[in-house]
C-alpha cells in the first residue's frame, strides 16, 4: 500500500477527482491548504503573496496502482494542452508517494483490502 499526497491547483481538483473516479479509485480525502513552491510565491503588482491556496488530495492505493494514479493526477492537474509531454506551468503542484504499512477499516475493524 502506498499513500499519495497531491498538492494541486484548486481549479483542477474537480477534474482530477472525476478522472480518479472513472479509474475506479473511490476513496479520496481532500484538504484545503496554502503554500508556495521554490518560486516563493507570486508578485502581483506591488503585493507579494506567499500563501497561495491549493487543494491537497490524499489517496491510498495498492502498490501496483501507484503509477496509474500518479499518471492520472499528473495528466489532469497539468495546465495547458492535454495528452502531450509538454510542461505545464509553475504552480501546477506536486505529487508525493509514501509507504503505508497497515490499513484498517474502522467499520469492520479488519484489515482493509481496497483504498
Amino acid at each position, binding site marked *: 500500500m502506498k499513500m499519495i499526497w497531491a498538492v494541486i491547483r484548486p481549479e483542477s481538483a474537480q477534474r482530477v477527482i472525476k478522472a480518479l473516479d472513472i479509474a475506479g479509485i473511490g476513496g*479520496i480525502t481532500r484538504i484545503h491548504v496554502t503554500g508556495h513552491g521554490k518560486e516563493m510565491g507570486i508578485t502581483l503588482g506591488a503585493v507579494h503573496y506567499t500563501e497561495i491556496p491549493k487543494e491537497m488530495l490524499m489517496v491510498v492505493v495498492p502498490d501496483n496502482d501507484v503509477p496509474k494514479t500518479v499518471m492520472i493526477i499528473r495528466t489532469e492537474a497539468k495546465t495547458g494542452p492535454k495528452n502531450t509531454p509538454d510542461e505545464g506551468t509553475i504552480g501546477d503542484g506536486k505529487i508525493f508517494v509514501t509507504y*503505508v504499512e*497497515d490499513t484498517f477499516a474502522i467499520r469492520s475493524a479488519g484489515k482493509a483490502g481496497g483504498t
Partner: protein
Amino acid sequence: MKLIIAVLREDRVEDTKAVLETIGIKGVTFLYVTGRGQQKGRVSARELGEPLNRNMRMQLIGARPGEGLPIDRTVDAGSPLYDDTEFSLGFLPKRMLIIVAYDEEVDRIVQGIVNANQTGRHGDGRIFICPMISALRVRTGEQGDKALS
C-alpha cells in the same frame, strides 16, 4: 516511530479524544477535511437522522441557494427524502487525526480509535499506519524518541 493517520466521523471526535486520553496519548492533531470512500459519499437519510428536504440538504453541503446540488438527481426539488432514500453528497465533512507514536503503542491506539468510532455503517473511516523516521521538539531541540516523550 509510526505515523498514524485516521479519517473519522465528525461526531466521534470527542469520544476519540476521551479514549486516547485514557490510553495516555497526549499529542494529537485534528484537521478539518472532506472525503469519501468506496461509496463515493452516498448516505441514507436514516444515517443522517432526519428526513431531509432540499433546503436542509443544501445547508448540509454548504451550497448557496440557487446553486443546486452537485450530484444528486434522485429526488425532485422540495420533496422530502425518506429514510431509505440514498443520495450522494459527494465529499462529506470528516475529521483527520494525526498521531506520531512509538511502535509499541500503535496496536493500542488503533484498537482505541476503532472502539470509539465503530458504528458498523459505511463512513466509519480508515486508519493508516506509516513509518516515521524522526521527530524534533521545537522548544528544546530534542530529537528522535525523546521528542515524543
